[in-house]
């Protein structure tokens, strides 16, 4: 059953081909077997998963089950889960057991889904390779010497290796789409405000958005509706109705106008990856879509803009981790200053510290206007670029990442090279628009992701467009050979 999508699992559970508990046990066994190779999980929640499975079975029996009852998932370890360690990939929160559930967790629990565990991630979601995690890097299931991408590397690797059919993830600058691309799975970052941020540990509040990584667009559509919607506990969540995403999946694409982002097909893009993307675009033409080139002139400024805005917000968001109330506290602090300095110095890793320092700098008196304020103005320009583009086309397409997965350690010492991996994904975060990455082929035996971007609250259209592609291609059904067995050893 490891190769089944969430939609297929749902049908088979209802057809009683296996029970929820059997499914859960099989996946827990796969997680355990894969863990030494992948390191995709920080915490496995076997006991509570089995308890949830038993409840799901009862609900299926008494007719109170919903469409998601009994379906398994994993949560990125950035979402607070009551009574369970929520580490955010950091030593700072290694001892932190959350006293409450994030809204996303609460909603998916209520839908009857079974939580298998918490996935590994870059520390505080800061990274593009999953190498900044306190719990060690996640490996790419397609080649264990390579990175899975980040920051939601654990979620992407878990789905790619089929140890979890679907996982929550978050995306601040590409943290859903880039690992989805590098691991050959489907990821969706919804519109900013679509999914509540309450209980999702903040990195950069104006950019963070929860979403999903799964095998297919259909699987994403099944779960996205259940985790979306206005939350009175998150003032930035938007009070707009949540459509039935599954119902929109099968709309024909005839007449669809696809804009190709000119700035994305530049010299930074690997030639073979570009070829792969262009082939995928031809597939869309066959489905009746029309391609036009679109210019978003401010978009090349998105990386520098992002690396002002995101660190600025993070420097403030991470100030609460001070060793006073919860989390890591240094041994034997001499005084208050020592407590702060050593707790934070020892509790945070190098990349987090780099961003806190950058953010502190750009917000400082005398620099604020030159950096933060200017970045906000550029952000407005990028916003306008997207708005203008969506006046002309239905969706935008381009590569998700400039290249396929790279080697562990290859970029770890060069933050600029690492940051450039998010060059195509950051724009959607700055503009707050929804975007997906779907598998669209292989280069040097490694998966390539096609990025699809839509207007605000255009998730339904994105999923529809992605689903149509997945009906005529099977890239999303490819499984890394080492994990394509029912029982892993």
């Amino acid at each position, binding site marked *: 059953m490891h190769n089944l999508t969430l939609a297929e699992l749902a049908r088979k559970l209802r057809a009683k081909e296996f029970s929820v508990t059997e499914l859960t046990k099989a996946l827990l066994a796969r997680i355990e077997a894969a863990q030494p190779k992948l390191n995709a999980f920080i915490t496995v929640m076997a006991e509570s998963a089995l308890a949830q499975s038993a409840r799901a079975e009862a609900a299926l029996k008494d007719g109170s089950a919903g469409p998601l009852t009994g379906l398994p998932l994993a949560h990125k370890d950035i979402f607070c889960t009551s009574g369970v360690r929520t580490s955010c990939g950091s030593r700072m929160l290694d001892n932190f057991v959350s006293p409450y559930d994030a809204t996303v967790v609460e909603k998916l629990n209520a839908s009857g889904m079974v939580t298998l565990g918490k996935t590994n991630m870059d520390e505080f979601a800061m990274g593009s390779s999953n190498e900044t995690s306190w719990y060690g890097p996640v490996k790419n299931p397609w080649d264990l010497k390579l990175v899975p991408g980040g920051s939601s590397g654990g979620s992407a690797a878990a789905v790619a290796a089929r140890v979890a059919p679907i996982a929550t993830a978050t995306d601040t600058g590409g943290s859903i789409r880039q690992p989805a691309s590098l691991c050959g799975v489907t990821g969706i970052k919804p519109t900013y405000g679509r999914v509540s941020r309450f209980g999702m540990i903040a990195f950069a509040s104006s950019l963070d958005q929860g979403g999903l990584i799964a095998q297919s667009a259909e699987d994403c559509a099944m779960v996205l509706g259940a985790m979306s919607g206005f939350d009175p506990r998150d*003032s930035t969540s938007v009070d707009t109705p949540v459509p039935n995403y599954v119902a929109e999946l099968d709309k024909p694409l005839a007449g669809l106008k696809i804009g190709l982002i000119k700035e994305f097909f530049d010299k930074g893009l690997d030639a073979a990856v570009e070829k792969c993307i262009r082939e995928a675009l031809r597939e869309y033409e066959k489905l009746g879509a029309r391609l036009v080139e679109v210019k978003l002139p401010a978009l090349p400024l998105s990386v520098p803009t992002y690396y002002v805005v995101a660190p600025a917000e993070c420097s403030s968001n991470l100030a609460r981790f001070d060793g006073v109330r919860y989390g890591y506290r240094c041994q034997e602090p001499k005084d208050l200053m020592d407590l702060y300095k050593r707790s934070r110095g020892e509790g945070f890793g190098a990349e987090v510290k780099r961003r806190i320092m950058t953010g502190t700098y750009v917000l400082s008196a005398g620099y604020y206007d030159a950096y933060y304020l200017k970045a906000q103005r550029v952000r407005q320009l990028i916003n306008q670029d997207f708005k203008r583009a969506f006046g002309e086309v239905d969706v935008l397409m381009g590569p998700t990442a400039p290249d396929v997965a790279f080697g562990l350690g290859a970029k770890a010492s060069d933050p600029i090279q690492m940051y450039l991996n998010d060059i195509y994904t950051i724009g959607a975060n700055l503009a707050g628009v929804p975007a997906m990455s779907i598998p669209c082929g292989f280069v040097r035996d490694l998966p390539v992701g096609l990025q699809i971007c839509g207007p605000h609250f255009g998730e339904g259209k994105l999923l529809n467009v992605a689903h149509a592609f997945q009906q005529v291609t099977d890239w999303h059904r490819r499984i890394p050979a080492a994990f394509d067995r029912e029982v892993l050893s």
Partner: protein
Amino acid sequence: MSAPISSKEGGWETVIGLEIHAQLSTASKIFSGSATAYGASPNSQANLVDLAYPGVLPVLNQEAVRMAVKFGLAVSATVTERSVFARKNYFYPDLPKGYQISQYELPIVARGHMDIVLDDGSRKRIGITRAHLEEDAGKSLHEGLGKLSGIDLNRAGTPLIEIVSEPDMRSAKEAVAYLKKVHTLVRYLEICDGNMQEGSFRCDANVSVRRIGAEKFGTRAEIKNINSFRFVEKAINYEVARQIDVLEGGGKVVQETRLYDPDKGETRSMRSKEEANDYRYFPDPDLLPVELDAAFIAGVQKTLPELPDQKAARFVATLGLSEYDAGVLTSSKELAAYYEEVAKLLAGGKEPSREQAKLAANWVAGSLAAALNEHNLEITGSRIDAKRFAGLLGRIVDNTISGKIAKDVFEAMWAEGKDADAIIESQGLKQITDTGAIEKAIDEVMAKNPGQLADYRSGKDKLFGFFVGQVMKSTGGKANPAQLNELLKKKLAG
């Protein structure tokens, strides 16, 4: 009117601006659902949002917005259509998030003013630069914990408005007058309980001095921890004297934050400008801008009560009170209500006449206010209610007792908690209005003091007072003064 301070080298002028923090009387905190009640056991009123747990988010309390708007309207300020919350970043254990949510570039209230009355009776307008919403911090506890410090986050997240004045005050007295005025106003508006001891109403003062006639302001010091009207005056006066000393000694005043020590009556340096935090303000991405439409503001306008200045003006215009009495009587909403009730009862439930209004004003602003002050009570804690008080004044009006005796009756009422009539009856204080009885007393006094009588009759008019005193003494002060005067004059004339 400025109060120049003379010194050997010439006059100095004081320049003062106040930053007042008023805790808003909302039931819950500004960004969380925790209760705001004072005095609960440490950390019993701090939820996950107040404790800044990972992942939690602030949600703005609408009631706090309404209260800030109320204040803005009451000081004739601009209530801004769009205000923005910003983060003020600094590390301190009583600040759980590592930043305070405040308003910086775009406050909810801008450009208002408030008039104060100076000693000479003239009015002065004090500008209000802005008032913004923000959250309070928690408290650090240092007592009884040995080498450790404790943190109580019950207060963290309590809504505040910070009211920033223009540097318009020129003496400590003016500063106190302005502070009192704001204190009265927030209580009228029922947006703050005004309790300075519990810290619900506190202020920092920016103080500088300059040569009289100088255009440029001097370097200012910000004085913190001045949490009573008395301390405000003392702290400012101390600081002014200190700055003049520094300047006249050839030194320079440094821009710094100074702490007032009420025990020693002095201010001392807390941190200099160089040591000051760079707060790295930026708009809080967790909160949307506060956008207020005209209908909302108009709705709040309708809830404004009669304001202290309006009430005082009415007392002057329709009741004929002096500006001073009107000011005293409107210093709290409850005192004004008490006064109005006394005056009305005195008038038998009708509109009081000017005489009745004046009598009631003299007594409420006089003896009653003094007694309350002496016992450190608010009018709500008065031991004499309005009905009994009106009863006492009624006995003056109907000549049952004299004003002088009434003071004794008042004392007894305060002490014993009884009606005026009961006290007059039991102590036999009823005024003597029987002409025969008064004449008899006069005769006795004249008989006992033949020398004085002779002197008076030979032209020492001043001795009239002596005879009044003697008769009053012999009647226990109960002789009707007007009657006594008339009869005594006749008798002494012979």
